[in-house]
């Protein structure tokens, strides 16, 4: 097989300075992204849990109720997921302009499809939430609604991952033909799985807290299920998902192209992973322990896992910086040299052209005609407007009529477009030279 050698592009950056110091933008990016992703996790994990509970609820009514309770949180979390996404979007646009936009453009159809897809998914979640009673005798249809929403919610992160992955690899840009080929770059799927499991973990923690709130009247909502049971299940979910990350995480790391790997990255990722160990331990103890002890150490679990998430988020950024910094340096040098070249070209073109002043009137008339009229008028034949010959027959004895027309043309001929007006573009003396030229040219 022939391997086509494609080169690596060095585009120019937007030739304007950053609006704030880089460290500031980076901090905002990391923090706001994490907040955004937590709500996305809750939205996706919540939908999946709802679906699962509702299917279970066909046999056991209690789970249907639980599904309803979780479903109520989705519509709130999804609204927050969207607004919280704006800050990281804005910031990544600022920091990684050409990289991000290039990835967007190369996967453009899928990228813009996010908008209608998410809109539909949101509408489905509302439909699902507000038709709980309507479809109480028609569960399969009701479940289908949330299933569709889940499918869409599962697709969307894939599009985002494809984009943020593609932006890291300028060497691939020349080989990408549409979304599918970008999707198949190594590393997209491992990162995606990593994210899905994170969603389940985050949602489990959220559920644990949600049903445990003091003013949450658990007993009046559920008949058989107890708080303890739900909490235990929630913890089990978090535990299983977190432990799985210890398998998926290394796969993600191994499939990362090596160019961005560095000790700084490994250190941050490992520290993050280690900090999650106490959380895993306490969760395990709570699950196997006595019911009255289930709430013990919940705070520690949350704190540890939060720190883990922050480390992973920073690791993500470190990898990005490691990968892109050499390229960013080239781009900024390139941009500087372009600005210089542009400046030189501008100065050259601004130099006064010689021999303008000693042109004769008719030469000037010709020049004005060439610049303003030749696009639409020729000497002997119709182009857009009538030929000069025709002008001469109309205005041979009426130069002021000609000038008046040029300043503010009317609409005369059938099937011709409107001629533009030149009132503000030509001075009186230019108009004189022009009309002289038109009326005298042979």
């Amino acid at each position, binding site marked *: 097989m022939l391997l086509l050698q494609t080169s690596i592009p060095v585009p120019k950056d*937007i030739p304007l300075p950053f609006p704030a110091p880089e460290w500031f933008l980076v901090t905002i990016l990391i923090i706001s992204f994490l907040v955004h992703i937590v709500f996305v996790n809750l939205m996706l994990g919540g939908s999946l849990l709802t679906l699962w509970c509702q299917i279970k609820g066909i046999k056991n009514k209690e789970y249907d109720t639980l599904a309803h309770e979780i479903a109520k949180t989705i519509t709130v979390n999804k609204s*927050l997921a*969207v607004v919280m996404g704006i800050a990281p979007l804005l910031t990544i646009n600022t920091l990684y302009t050409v990289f991000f936009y290039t990835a967007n453009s190369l996967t*453009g159809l899928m990228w813009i499809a996010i908008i209608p897809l998410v809109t539909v998914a949101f509408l489905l979640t509302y439909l699902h939430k507000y038709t709980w009673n309507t479809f109480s005798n028609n569960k399969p249809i009701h479940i289908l609604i949330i299933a569709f929403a889940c499918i869409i919610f599962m697709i969307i992160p894939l599009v985002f991952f494809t984009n943020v992955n593609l932006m890291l690899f300028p060497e691939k*840009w020349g080989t990408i033909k549409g979304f599918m080929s970008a999707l198949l770059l190594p590393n997209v799927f491992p990162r995606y799985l990593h994210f899905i499991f994170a969603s389940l973990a985050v949602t489990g923690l959220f559920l644990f807290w949600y049903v445990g709130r003091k003013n949450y009247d658990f007993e009046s909502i559920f008949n058989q299920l107890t708080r303890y049971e739900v909490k235990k299940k929630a913890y089990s979910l978090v535990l299983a998902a977190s432990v799985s990350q210890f398998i998926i995480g290394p796969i993600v790391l191994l499939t990362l192209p090596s160019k961005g790997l560095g000790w700084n990255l490994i250190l941050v990722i490992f520290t993050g992973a280690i900090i999650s160990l106490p959380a895993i331990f306490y969760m395990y103890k709570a699950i196997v322990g006595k019911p009255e002890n289930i709430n013990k150490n919940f705070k520690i679990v949350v704190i540890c896992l939060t720190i883990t998430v922050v480390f992973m988020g920073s690791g993500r950024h470190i990898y990005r910086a490691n990968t892109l910094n050499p390229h960013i340096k080239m781009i900024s040098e390139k941009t500087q040299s372009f600005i210089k070249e542009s400046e030189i070209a501008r100065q050259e073109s601004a130099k006064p052209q010689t021999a303008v002043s000693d042109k004769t009137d008719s030469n000037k008339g010709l020049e004005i005609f060439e610049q303003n009229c030749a696009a639409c008028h020729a000497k002997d034949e119709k182009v857009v407007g009538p030929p000069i010959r025709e002008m001469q027959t109309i205005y041979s004895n009426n130069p002021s009529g000609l000038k008046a027309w040029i300043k503010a043309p009317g609409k005369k001929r059938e099937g011709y*477009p409107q001629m533009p007006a030149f009132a503000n573009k030509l001075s009186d003396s230019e108009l004189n030279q022009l009309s002289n030229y038109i009326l005298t040219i042979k």
Partner: protein
Amino acid sequence: MDIPLFHLDWLNNRMLIAIIATLHALINHSLAVGFMPLVTWLENKGVVNSNPHEITDPKWDKMVYKMMWTAFIITTTIGAMTGVGIWFSVSLVSPNSIASLIRVFYFAWFVEWLVFVTEVVLILIYFLTWKNANKTLKAKTRHIKFGWYLSVFSWVTMAIIVSILGFMMDPGNWNNEQSLINGFTNPLYLPQLLYRTPLAMVLAGTLGLFLVSVFTNKGDTIRIKAFRYIGKWILCWLPFAVAGAVYYFNVIPKTMLANLQVAIGTQSFQQWYDIMWKVIVGSSIIILITAIITVWKPQIMKSYFLAITLVFALGFMGLFERVREFIRKPYIISEYMYSNLLREEDYPLYKKDGILKWATYNSTPTVTNENKVEAGRNVFMLACSRCHTTQGINSITYVFDRMYGNTGKPFKEDMMKSYIKNMHKSREYMPPFPGNDLELDALVAYIKQLQVTNEVLEGAQEVGVAINKDQSVEAFKSQFANKETQNESQNNLVKK
């Protein structure tokens, strides 16, 4: 040029943005900015008009809640997503312009975001606590207060965005002061706000009337009462909306006005221009009649008539938005960047070296006899594709043929060349042609081929990009290596 160009060859790239942006503005104005104060006001009326032993009139409150429910569902789905969609579509279609704006307006957008987050949190609170708030008078009063906060934040969100839009349309300022305050002090800011605020109120009113007719039955007393209130609401705001529209229209700078007639998008300018005014005058009259009837004879008002009024009211605003979308031509950022995403100040360089040489993504850095048509396609992509398609809306063969009288005859090369060279003078809404003479030849050859082959121009999202060898890492390295050795030898000379 530095970012692969996304291109929709049928829909036209600007149309994509226009559709999403117009939809967003319609929802934002009619269901957020105008609707929140209307709903809060009506909710309050329920409390004020209730029996002494009740917290609020339950039937009335339920109706108002249903109105709010509608607004909540639509704004948090289509409304929110079209807002994000504006970003997405603009960054696909004109990445360089939005990127430049963000570099300058980052904090404006950031503040906008904070306000927007507040707005969303408030709308969640306001809507989701509605039913619980009906338990005590104190809770209800607090709930109504949240309604007012929400109204204020919806308005502020709009006020900030208007500043950014106003800035983009104001010629000249970008080059002098690229700063934040500028957006608020520019001459278009106040007029836009003065036009949009009352318009949003009127739109919300017409929508409110329609929803009342949906959520109540004929002859209900609350229906009559609601019609009267909302009718008065409209009557209060309508004169301001009309005055605002006239004012706004008069302040749009002259050069943009010159474009305005073409702005609407077809050749028959005058016709469209008249249509716009007819729709504006016509819908104002219809809204006025509707409002008068609902205040003085609410019994005879029919749902379908309210639906028609609503359509006209949305049409009123939709047309204005459409015009605004197209007004900036040929600049996308006044006197800084043209709609083809090239900066005005770089033109001399492109004219000198050719635009293809500097474009990161194209297969033909230099035009030769062999690659002429392909080079022409690349030139077209860079210079014309943001506004023209090859086979779809505003297609290049269509506009040329129409200009030459719809003859369908093969275009004449010389004529096209002299036209393109001067197109910015004869048709001011287009930027000047950026390339050199060889590239012009190539472009013309390509367009002539298009005329006979019907081939479709595919964007980077489908066929990917070819990397210009002159703009690759290899070229970069050798160029900068040369520079360094030059510098070194110069240094050596100096040392000697």
